[in-house]
C-alpha cells in the first residue's frame, strides 16, 4: 500500500463518518461542526488529486466563510423547527431515504460501469502542475477570462440584490 492510498482511506473515512454524524446530530451546531470536518476531509482528497489550489480554496471559502455564515444563522435564530417538520410530515423522511438510496445506487453503478477517460496526462510531473495556483491562474485569465468576467457580473447583481432587499431605508 502506498502512502497515497493510506491517506485516501484516512480522508475518506473521516469524510464519510463526519457526513453520517452531521445528519444524525440533534443539535444543529454540532451538525455544522461535522460539516466543517467533512469539508476538511474533502480538501484532503482534493490534495491527493493534485488539486492544491482547490483544496486550499475549499478551506478558505467553504470552511472559513460559508460555514461561519451558517453558524451565525444557527446561533442567532436557534432553529428547532426542523424536528417538527418531520413530525407533521413523516412521509418526508421516507422520501429523503428513497432519494438517498437512489443516489447511492447511482454512485455504485458509476464505480462499476464507468469507462474512465484518458484526459489526464500520464506524466506525473505534468499532473502535479495542473492543480497549481500558477496554472489555474493562467487558464482563468487567458482562456476563461470571459466566464470569469460573467461570474463577476453575477456577483455584482447578487450584491445589488442584497442591497435592494435588505437596505433599511431608501431616500
Amino acid at each position: 500500500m502506498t502512502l497515497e492510498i493510506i491517506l485516501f482511506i484516512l480522508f475518506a473515512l473521516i469524510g464519510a463518518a463526519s457526513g453520517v454524524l452531521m445528519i444524525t446530530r440533534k443539535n444543529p451546531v454540532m451538525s455544522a461542526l461535522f460539516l466543517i470536518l467533512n469539508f476538511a476531509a474533502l480538501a484532503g482528497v482534493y490534495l491527493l488529486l493534485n488539486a492544491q489550489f482547490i483544496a486550499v480554496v475549499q478551506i478558505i471559502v467553504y470552511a472559513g466563510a460559508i460555514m461561519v455564515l451558517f453558524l451565525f444563522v444557527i446561533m442567532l435564530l436557534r432553529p428547532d423547527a426542523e424536528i417538527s417538520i418531520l413530525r407533521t410530515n413523516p412521509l418526508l423522511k421516507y422520501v429523503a431515504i428513497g432519494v438517498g438510496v437512489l443516489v447511492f445506487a447511482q454512485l455504485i453503478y458509476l464505480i462499476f460501469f464507468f469507462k474512465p477517460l484518458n484526459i489526464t496526462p500520464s506524466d506525473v510531473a505534468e499532473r502535479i502542475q495542473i492543480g497549481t495556483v500558477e496554472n489555474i491562474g493562467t487558464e482563468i485569465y487567458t482562456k476563461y477570462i470571459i466566464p470569469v468576467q460573467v461570474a463577476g457580473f453575477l456577483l455584482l447583481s447578487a450584491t445589488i440584490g442584497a442591497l435592494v432587499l435588505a437596505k433599511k431605508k431608501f431616500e
Partner: protein
Amino acid sequence: MIPSLQDLFNILPPVIIGAGILIALTLEMFVKPAKKIIPHFAFLVFLFTAYYSLMTMDKETYSLNTLMSGGGLTNILYFIFTFGSAIVVLISYDFIRKKDIVSSEYYILLMSAVLGMMIMASAKDFLMVFLGLEQMSVCFYILAGINRRNLLSNEASLKYFLLGAFATGFIVYGIAFIYGASGSLSYLVITNAIVTGQNITFLTIGLLLFIIGFSFKIAAFPFHMWVPDVYQGAPTTVSAFMSTTGKTAAFAVLIALLLPLFTVGNYQIFGPVLSLLAALSMIYGSIVAIAQKDIKRMLAYSSIAHAGYMLIGIAAGIPAGSAGVIYYLLAYTFMNIGAFGIVAYLEGVEETNLHIEDYAGLANQKPVLAALLSLFMFALAGIPPLAGFFGKYYVFVAAIKAGLVWLALVGIVSSAISVYFYLRLVVYMYFRENSKTITVFDSSYSMLGIIIAALLVIIVGVFPNTVVELITHFIS
C-alpha cells in the same frame, strides 16, 4: 490562448449591455437626478443593442475557443431579449413610480438579467450556459421581490429562489454527469461523444437531469408549481419580463443543445420525454387557467400552456420545428408583454384591479385599452391572422412532419380549450355592465410600449414567412 479584441467584437451585444450596467451603476452613484436618467439610459441601451444585433446578423462566428457564438440565430434571440426589454422599460416607467419601487436598481437589474439571457443564447458550452442562467435567475429572484412592501412579492421572491435553486441543483448535477462522461463541456464534443456512444448511459442521465432543470425554468408541467404564485406576487412588469424573455433564453439553450442530438441515429430518447412534457403542460395549463379569476394567475397558467406548445417544436426534432419555436417565442414575447403591460397599466397602487370582475365594462371606460387587450387575447388564443396563430401553426406542422400527429392533435384540442378563458376576458370587457368604475393612472409611456407591442404582433403575424425563412436560413 488569450482572447483578442476580435473575440470581444464578435459578441459585442452582451458587451454593450455589460458596459451599460457599469455605466448605469456609476451614474447612480455620482449623478443626482439618476432616478430620471437611468430608465431613459436603459431604454436607449436596449434599443441600440437591438438595432446592432439586427444589423450584424449575417456574420456568424464562434468566439473565445467556441465558448460562445455570435451572429445568425443568436442575434435574432438578442433582438427578442433587447427589444422586449425596451418595451418592458416603457411599461415599467410609470408603474414603478406608481408603486414607489426602488427605481435605479430595478432598471440595472433588468439589464443584468438581459446580460444573462444573452450569454445563455450565445453559449456553446455548459460553463457559459450555467453562468448565464445563474446571472438571469439571480436577477429574477431579486426583481420578483423588489416591491418590498408587498407580502405577496416577498413570498414570490422566496418561493422562486428556493425552487430555482433546487432546479439549478438538477442542472449542475446533470452537467457533472455530462462532463464526467465526455470530459468536456462543449456542445460539439458532447454531440461527438454521443455519436461514438462512449459512456452513453451517463450522458443520457446527465442530459435528462439537465432537461428537468430547464423544465423548471421554462415552466413546463410537472415542474410548474412556482409559476402562478411567482407571476402573481411579482410586480406585474416583472412578470411580463420573466415570462417572455426568460422563457426565450431557456428555450434558446434547449434548442442549441438538443437539435443536433436528434440527428444522431439510434439516439431517440429525448423526443418521447419532451413530447410527454409538452402534452401535459398544454392540457394542464389550459384547463387550470379556466378556473382562474385573477388575471395574473390566468396569464401564468397560460404561460405554462404556451411552454407546452413550444416544447412540441423541439420534440419534433427537425430544424423547421425549432424555427417555429423561435418564431413562436418572438410572437409570444410581444403579445405577453403587451397583455401584462395593460394589466400593469390598469393596476392600482395597492394590488387592486386584478380580478376579472374589475375588467367588466372596460370597453366603455377605456375603449383603446380594451381593444388592445382584446387584440392580445386573440393573439394568445391563436386566432388568425395574428402572430400567435402562426406560431402554433408552424409548431404543429413540424410535429406532423416528424410523425407526432397525436401531439399536434393534443395541441389543437388544448388550443380550443384555451380560447374559452382568453375570450372570457373579452366578453367581460365588452358585454358585461360595469358595477363600478375603476381608478386608472394614465401613462403615455406605457401606452407607447403597449402600442409598439401590438404593432409587432400584427406585423409578425402578417409577414410570418419572411421571419420564419430568415430563422430557418440560420438554423440549417
